[in-house]
């Protein structure tokens, strides 16, 4: 069976910066592949290569069996692209943007108009159809971007951070649209910084850092992989926070995270059989407990464990993005 996306050993350098250092990606037909990674990890570069916008310096990639380099024209007939780039024309109205794309894809004037109206209706933009896009709100803009990428009825859809900067309601609307597309058999490659988004939508996840794939699996597999569970302890007396932390460190062998504001100590736990011993030792140290919880690790914690940080200010990141946009 042909995979919708199959990339192996992708390498891309921009001057001295290595954006991709041999990344492999596979998306099964009709599923969502979530690509996670901190800013500048190489996600956008990977999408641009798969969308025929960039040529890789090494490795190869196929979309529905077509090579993105040698058969770029075929690939372009199969894909749709939505993201921080691949934007719509701000100077045109919403409907004219969609008509333009329909005409470029070979539709007649009336076909293009009908398809545009249908998509605007579906994305709740009928009222704003005649307005220039520059007057649209962020959420409307994003929905139009998505509509624009669907004019050609793509088999494979690239969504590069489709909900960044959206309010929670708009975000869940975009999620519903993505689910509907997947139900129609579309394969989606989704890059995101929001782990709950990947958790909600993705069938498979690839975590990229420094241009390399550092983990792959289903959301559940990834959660299991990184220890799986998290123990959270809140001492009744805040002064005993460090004592409690020391006990947890000694028993689990990991360094616990402490939060002085909430009085919380958190540590990953691999073996649940340790818990009775931990409780006993806390009791012996006279740490009275306000809270003692064992829960499954969230994808955020998995991600932190894998990449050693997310969302920290990264001075190199703007530069990398700039390089990704305009090589040379």
């Amino acid at each position, binding site marked *: 069976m042909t995979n919708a996306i199959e990339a192996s050993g992708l390498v891309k350098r921009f001057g001295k910066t290595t954006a991709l250092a041999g990344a492999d990606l596979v998306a099964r037909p009709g599923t969502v592949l979530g690509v996670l990674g901190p800013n500048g990890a190489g996600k956008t570069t990977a999408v641009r290569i798969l969308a025929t916008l960039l040529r890789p310096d090494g490795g190869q990639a196929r979309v529905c069996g077509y090579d993105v380099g040698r058969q770029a024209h075929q690939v372009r007939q199969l894909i749709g692209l939505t993201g921080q780039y691949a934007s719509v024309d701000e*100077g*045109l109205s919403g409907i004219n943007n969609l008509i333009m794309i329909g005409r470029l894809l070979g539709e007649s004037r009336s076909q293009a108009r009908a398809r545009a109206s249908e998509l605007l209706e579906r994305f709740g933009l009928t009222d704003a159809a005649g307005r220039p896009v520059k007057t649209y709100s962020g959420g409307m803009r994003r929905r139009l971007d998505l509509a624009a990428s669907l004019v050609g009825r793509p088999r494979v859809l690239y969504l590069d951070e489709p909900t960044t900067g959206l309010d929670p309601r708009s975000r869940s609307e975009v999620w519903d649209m993505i689910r509907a597309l997947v139900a129609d058999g579309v394969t989606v490659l989704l890059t995101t910084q929001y782990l709950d988004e990947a958790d909600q939508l993705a069938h498979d996840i690839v975590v990229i850092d420094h241009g390399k794939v550092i983990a792959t699996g289903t959301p559940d597999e990834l959660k299991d992989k990184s220890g799986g569970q998290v123990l959270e302890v809140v001492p009744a007396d805040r002064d005993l926070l460090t004592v409690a932390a020391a006990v947890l460190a000694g028993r689990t062998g990991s360094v616990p995270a402490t939060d002085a504001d909430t009085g919380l100590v958190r540590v990953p736990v691999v073996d649940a059989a340790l818990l009775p011993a931990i409780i006993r030792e806390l009791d012996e140290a006279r740490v009275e407990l306000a809270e003692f919880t064992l829960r499954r690790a969230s994808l955020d914690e998995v991600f932190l464990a894998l990449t050693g940080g997310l969302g920290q200010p990264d001075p190199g990141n703007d530069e990398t993005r700039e390089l990704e946009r305009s090589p040379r």
Partner: protein
Amino acid sequence: MTTATLPYATPAARLGPVTGLRNAFTLTWRSVLKIRTNMEDLIGLSLQPIMFLLLFTYVFSGAISGGTHAYLQFELPGLLVMTVVFATLGTGLMLNQDIAGGVFDRFRSLPIARWAPLAGAVLGDMVRYMISVAITLGFGMVLGFRIGTSPVSAVVGCLLLLTFALALCWVSALIGMLVKTPQGVQMYGFLAMFPLVFGSNLLVPAQTMPGWLQAFVKVNPMTDLTSAERGLLTGGPIGTPALHSLLWALGIFVVFAPLAVRAYRRRT
């Protein structure tokens, strides 16, 4: 197995030249639509020639040729050249915005001819040049300019202007590709165009200029184009300056169109 799970048509292996032309015309339609919907652009496009005409006619006429009408007859062909030359800057600006705003990335992810977005931008700008020429000529006539030749030669004069603009806009396109921001495009565009426009016989006869400047004026293509326009609109020699203008247009096109296309390929 593949066809069973993915019931779609097999994608075409390549794109025919007719489809490429169609793509280019769709994108020309887009450029024209943008002119129509962008009020600021439209106001600038129409008011700039009117402003130039009023300023140059009434500020310079007394000093240069002693009378408004005489100077208007002299300067109007030059102002036509000037407005069209400045209008070519729009090509570079639009291309620059399209690249920076990600519109070109969308185009490049579509199965369309690679050259269509560039051709569409350039062809769409022809409409802008026509508007500039029509307003300059029309308002000039309101102020008292009279065509001293024939309507046919006036039309030829306009066509010559458009031909030259069609070549010159590739310089603008190249600047639009090489420079990062629209502000940069504007700055480099003006730096390139001001010496060409003012270092010529466009607004004043060259005789009063120092020798070194006269030498520059002589080789400046704007001088040839302005002389040709004068010949076609108010009378005088046409053949040599018109031929030189066409050769310049051809030369500019042959050099800058491939450079712009190359820069476009690289930048995107």
